[in-house]
C-alpha cells in the first residue's frame, strides 16, 4: 500500500563507507578465525607443502596385469588397489611391485632447511624390499619385484594364527631393508597399516605411526614359529647437528650403508623422488663406490643406461635424462632393441658439466646389463658416483650447511624475543 518511491540516488556513491568498514571487519574476522582453527589443527605449516597430486598409481599397469579387475576399480582409493595387488601372484606381482618402492635420489647437493624440514636415519646394509602381510601370510619382495621370503609374521594378517592378526582384510605393507647378518627386517617406512593407506600422509606422520604401531603387534619380538623374522624400526632423527651426528656415528645393531634423508612433508611417492635422499661416505658405508660382480671396485665408473628409439641412451629418471646416443648401425649389429639396459664405463674424458647441469659424457660400451636389473641408473646416482670418485660431498659439508642455517636463524630469534 506504500506508494512507489520515485527518488533515486543522485550524485551519490552507491556504497556507504560504513558498509565498507563493516565488510572489511567481517573479512578480517573470518580470516582470523580460519587462521586460529588452522593453528589448532597444526595445519598451517604443513598445508603449504601438502601436494595435490592424486595417488601415484598407474591403473593401466594394474588392469593389464589383473584382467579380472574391472574398470571401476580405477576410481577407487589407493588402498583398494593395494589390497588387490597384495594378492597378485607370479610375474604380474613382480611387475607391479617393481614400481611401488619410493626410491631416493642420491644427494648431489645439500638441500635447504635440512635441520627444519628433514629427518636423517642410518640406512641398514642389505636388500631393500616391500613386505606385504595379508591373508595369513607375509611376502617380501626386493626392488625388482621378485620374492625374497615367504613366511609367517606377527604383522597384521601376517600368519594363520587366530586371535592376534585381526580380520582378513587387515593387511599391511612395510618398506624394509633385510639385514642378512642378524636376519632382521629393518623397517624404514610404513606404506599401509591394517588396511589403511598411508600414501597420502606426510613422512612425519608415517614415521610417527611406524614407531608407535609396529611394536604393538609383536613384530619386533624374537623369531618364533608364527614369526619367522624379527622386525625392527630404524631410529630416525631431526636433521640438526646432533641428529646428524647420532645417525652418522651412533652405534646401531646393524651395519650402516649410508644415510637416508626424508623430507618431513613429503607423501609416499612411488619411484624416484628428490624428497628422499641417500648419501654415503667411506666411514658409514662399505659400498660408497659401486663394485662389480666380483665385489671389486673397477678402475672406471660403470653406469647402466636404457636404450630408447633412435639409439638414445637415457637414465631411469622421470622424465629420463638423455646421456648419449648409440650409432644406429651399431645398435643393429649388436641386436639391441629399444628398452635394453646397457652398461658403459666412463672414460678419461669423464662427465662434463656446465652450470651444474650435465653436458656430455665420455662413454665406453661394455655390453648388455645383468638381467636381474630392472632399471637404468638414475641421473643422481651417476653424478654421486662420479663425485665420489673425484670430489665427494663430505659429512663436514652437511654439518656446515646446518650450522649455517642456524646462524641465519639466530638474529631473527633475538629480535622476536624482544
Amino acid at each position, binding site marked *: *500500500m506504500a*506508494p*512507489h518511491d*520515485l*527518488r*533515486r*540516488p*543522485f*550524485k551519490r*556513491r552507491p556504497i*556507504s*563507507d*560504513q558498509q565498507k*568498514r*563493516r565488510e*572489511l*571487519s*567481517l573479512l*578480517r*574476522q*573470518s580470516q*582470523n*578465525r580460519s587462521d*586460529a*582453527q588452522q593453528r*589448532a*589443527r597444526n*595445519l598451517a605449516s*604443513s*598445508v603449504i607443502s*601438502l601436494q*595435490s597430486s*592424486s595417488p601415484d598409481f598407474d591403473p593401466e599397469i594394474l588392469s593389464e596385469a589383473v584382467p579380472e579387475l574391472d574398470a571401476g576399480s580405477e*576410481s577407487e*582409493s589407493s588402498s583398494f588397489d593395494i589390497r588387490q595387488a597384495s594378492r597378485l601372484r607370479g610375474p604380474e606381482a613382480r611387475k607391479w611391485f617393481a614400481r611401488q618402492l619410493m626410491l631416493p635420489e642420491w644427494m648431489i647437493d645439500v638441500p635447504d632447511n635440512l635441520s627444519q624440514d628433514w629427518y636423517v636415519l642410518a640406512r641398514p646394509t642389505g636388500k631393500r624390499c616391500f613386505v606385504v602381510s595379508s591373508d595369513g601370510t607375509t611376502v617380501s619382495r626386493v626392488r625388482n619385484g621378485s620374492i625374497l621370503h615367504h613366511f609367517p609374521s606377527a604383522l597384521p594378517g601376517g600368519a594363520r594364527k587366530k586371535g592376534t592378526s*585381526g580380520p582378513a582384510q587387515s593387511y599391511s605393507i612395510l618398506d624394509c631393508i633385510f639385514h642378512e647378518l642378524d636376519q632382521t627386517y629393518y623397517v624404514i617406512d610404513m606404506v599401509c*597399516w*591394517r*588396511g*589403511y*593407506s*598411508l600414501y*597420502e*600422509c*606426510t613422512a612425519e*606422520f608415517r614415521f610417527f*605411526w611406524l614407531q608407535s*604401531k609396529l611394536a*604393538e603387534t609383536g613384530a619386533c619380538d624374537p623369531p618364533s614359529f608364527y614369526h619367522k623374522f624379527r622386525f625392527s624400526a630404524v631410529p630416525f632423527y631431526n636433521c640438526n647437528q646432533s641428529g646428524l651426528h647420532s645417525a652418522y656415528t651412533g652405534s646401531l645393531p646393524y651395519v650402516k650403508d649410508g644415510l637416508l634423508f626424508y623430507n618431513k612433508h613429503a607423501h609416499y611417492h612411488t619411484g624416484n623422488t628428490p624428497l628422499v635422499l641417500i648419501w654415503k661416505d667411506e666411514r658409514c658405508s662399505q659400498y660408497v663406490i659401486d663394485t662389480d660382480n666380483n665385489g671389486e671396485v673397477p678402475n672406471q665408473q660403470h653406469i647402466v643406461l636404457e636404450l630408447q628409439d633412435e639409439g638414445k641412451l637415457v637414465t631411469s629418471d622421470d622424465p629420463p635424462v638423455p646421456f648419449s646416443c648409440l650409432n644406429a648401425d651399431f645398435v643393429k649389429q649388436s641386436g639391441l632393441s629399444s628398452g635394453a639396459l646397457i652398461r658403459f664405463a666412463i672414460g678419461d674424458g669423464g662427465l662434463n658439466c656446465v652450470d651444474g647441469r650435465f653436458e656430455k659424457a665420455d662413454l665406453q660400451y661394455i655390453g648388455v646389463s645383468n638381467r636381474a636389473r630392472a632399471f637404468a641408473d638414475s641421473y643422481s646416482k651417476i653424478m654421486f658416483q662420479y663425485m665420489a670418485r673425484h670430489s665427494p660431498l663430505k659429512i663436514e659439508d652437511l654439518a656446515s650447511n646446518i650450522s649455517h642455517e642456524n646462524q641465519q636463524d639466530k638474529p631473527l630469534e633475538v629480535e622476536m624475543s624482544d
Partner: protein
Amino acid sequence: MAMEITQILLSAQSADTRVRTEAEGSLRQFQEQNLPQFLLSLSFELANNDKPAESRRLAGILLKNSLDAKESARKDHLVKQWCAIDVALKSQIKELLLRTLGSSALEARHTSAQVIAKVASIEIPQKQWPELVGSLLNNMTQQGSPAHLKQSTLETLGYVCEEISHHDLVQDEVNSVLTAVVQGMNQAGNPAEVRLAATKALLNALDFSQTNFENEMERTYIMKMVCETACSKEADIRQAAFECLVSIASTYYEVLEQYMVTLFELTSNAVKGDQESVALQAIEFWSSICDEEIDRQEYDSPDSGDSSPPHSCFIEKALPQLVQMLLETLEKQEEDQDHDDDVWNISMAGGTCLGLVARTVGDVIVPLVMPFVEANISSPNWRSREAATYAFGSILEGPTTDKLAPMVAAGLQFLLTATKDVNNHVRDTTAWTLSRIFEFLHSPDSGFSVITPENLPVIVGVLLESIKDVPNVAEKVCGAIYNLAQGYEDSGANSSLLSPYLTEIIKQLLAAAERTDGAESKLRGAAYETLNEVVRCSNLSEASSIIAQLLPVIMAKLGQTMDLQIVSTDDREKQAELQASLCGVLQVIIQKLSGKEDTKPIVMQSADDIMRLFLRVFGCHSSSVHEEAMLAIGALAYATGAEFVKYMGELFKYLQMGLQNFEEYQVCSITVGVIGDICRALDETILPFCDQIMGLLIQNLQSEALHRSVKPPIFSAFGDIALAIGAHFERYVAPALQIMQGAAQVCAQMDTLDEELMDYSNQLRKSIFEAYSGILQGFKDTKSEVMIPYAQHLLQFVELVSKDSLRDESVTKAAVAAMGDLADVVGEKTKQLFKNFTFCGEFLNECLQSDDEELRATALWTQGMIGRLMLSS
C-alpha cells in the same frame, strides 16, 4: 455483546497524561481478558456513523494492530489468535467491516478497507471467507450503488489483491475482480473519485493479474484502459495510471513489445508537456525499463549457462529519441536543488535515467550525447553549462574505456578549469563529473588511468583548492579525492604516487570536516569517509609516520565531542553522528597500522587512551555510535592481543548491551563479531565472562525476534569461544549442541528454490560447522570424550550437506574440516562411526579433486586424520 467503549477510546487520546494512561490501561486489559469482545466492540465503534471521528479512528488502528504486525513472530501470534476466535463472532465483525465501506465518513471507509484486507490475508488462503469477493463485487454491480461505496470497494479490492496470491482464488473470481477494477477506470459513467480508486486498485492488483497478462486479449484490454486513463483530464488519475505503467514495466517486461510505440509516445508527451508529478512517473517508466535490461544483461553472463530471460532491447530501439527527450529535461534545473536532499525534479530524474541508458547500451550513446555536451558546455547560460556537464558525467559508466578515454583526456583540462565557474551548480556538477572520471577511468593497477604522473600535481592542486568551495561543492570534491585514492590502493608500484600529497590532502580533509558552514550538507561525513579511504589506500611504509600523527588528532577530536553542549535531541543526534565518523576513522587507522608488525606499536602505545575514549562514547548511549565504536573495538582487540584483558572489566556491560540490541540488529551482529575478536585476543583469560556471554548468545539464538542474519555469526562465535577456553567449554556443550542440532535440522528443511534463503542456509551451515570445529579443537588435549555423543549427528549433518549439490564451496570446506576435527580430537571412539558412514570416502575424493587449493589441502588433512584413526587398534 459488544461493549460501549467510545469514552475509553476518546480518553486514550486525551492530552492529560493521567487520563490517557488510565484509558490505555483499560483497553489493554480488555484486549488481554477478552479479545473476541474487544475486537467486536472496536468493529461496532468503527461501523457506527453516530460516533465521533476520533474514537472511530483509534478503533480502526487497534483493529489493524490486532491482525498484523511488522515483526513476523508477533504477526504469527496475532494470526493464531484470530483463527481461534468463534466463527459466528468473526462473521459479525466481518459484516460490520463490510457495512463500514458504505459509511459517509471517508476515513472510516478507508480504515475498514485496510482491515478487511488484513482479515482476507488470513482467511482467504484458508478458504474461510468465500463470500468476500462476491459481496465486494456486488457493491460494484448493484443498481444505485453510491459512488463512495464503489470507491471504497475498489480500494478494498486493491488491498486484498495485494495481500493474497491469485492462486488463492479460482480464476473466475480473479477475472471478475479485474473486470470490476478495470471497468471502474472507464471514463464513461464513473465519477473521478471512482476512476482514481480503480486506477490505484489496479496498481495494487498488478501482481495478482499474472494469468490475465499472459492472455493477449485480456492484456491488451488492460493496457488500453491504462493508456486511456493516462490521458484523463484529472492530473492525479493520470499520475496513478503512469504509476501502473512503471510497475508494468518491471513486472511484465516480457510482453511489452507490441505496446512500445504507444508507450513511447505517451511517456514522451508527458515528459515534454505534463505537470511534473506525471512527467516524473513517465521518466521513471524508462528508468525501470533500463533496470530490467541491465539486470538481464548481467544475468546473461556467458559462463552462467542458464537460459536468460528475453531481452527486447527497448532502450536501444528507442535510443535517439529517448536520449533527445532526456537531454531536454536537463535544462529544467531548480535553482537550489543541490542544497536540499528532498528535492526530486525532472532534470534530476532525466539525468539519472540518462546514466541508466548509458549503462544499458554502452558505446552507442556517446555520439548521441557528445554533440549536446560540446554545444552547451561553454554556453553563457549556466543551465546549459550545467546540463552539458551533467550529460557528460552521466555517460561515464557503461561505454568502454577505449571509447571514453580520448574524450575524457581531451575534456579533463576543461573540467579542471570549470571548478572555478561562477555558478555554484556548474561547479557542483563539475566536481561530481571529476569524481566519476576517477571512479571509472582511473585504475592504474589494471592498466589504464587518465591520470599521469605529469597531470597528477595539477589535479591534486585543483581538488585541494576546490575543497574550500561552498559545502555542496566541497562534498563532491571529497568524492573525487575518494576515488582518486582508491585508484592508488596499496598494492603494486602505483601506491606511492599519492604519498607526496598525503599530508596536504589529510590537512584539507580535516579542515573541510571542521567547517561550520556545512551543517546542512553532508560535507563532514563525506570528508571523514574520504579520509578513511585515503588512509586505507596509502602506502603504509611511506605513510606510517603521517598516519601516526593523524591518530592523536582524531583522538583529540573524539575527546572534544564529549564536551559538546547537549540541549535537544537534535544536539544528541549531531554528537552521535560526529562520534560515529570519528570512531570510523580510528577503526581505519588501527586496522591500517596493525597490518604490519613494525607499525603495530604505534597503536599499542595509545591503546589505553583510545579505549578510554570508546568507553566514554558508549557512555553517551547512542546506538549508532555504539555500532561504530564497537567495530573499532574489534580492530583494537586484534591489534593489542592478550593485553586487551585489562579493558574487559569496563567494556563488558557494553558488550552485553550490544548483544541485547535486537532492534538494531547490525549492532548486535557487530558485537557478536567483536566477541570473536576478543576471544582470539584473550584466549583463556576470557573465561570469567563466558557464562554471561554464552547465556546471551543462546538466548539470542532462541529468540524469534532477532533478525536471522545475526544467527550464523553467533554459531561462529561459539567456535571462537570454545577455541579460546578449551575444555572449559564443557559446561556449555549440552545447550550449545542442542541448538546447533536444531539449526541443522532447519537447514535441511529450507526451500531450495528461494535464492535468498539458500544464501542464508549456506551461511548457517558454514557457521554450524565452524562451531563444531572450534568446540572439537577446544577439547583436543583433554575431555574429548564429551563430544562422543554428538559425533553421529555431526556426521549425519556432513552427509546431508555432501549430498546437496547447491552447497557453497565455503560450506564444503567447513564441513570437511569439522569431519577431520572429529577424527583428530575424539579419535578411536568414532572409528566405527566413520566406517559406518560410507559417504566419507566418496565425499573426500570429490573434495580432493576440487580446483580450490584450500579445499584440497583441508580434505587431505581430514583424510590423514581419518586414516590415522583407521590404523589405530
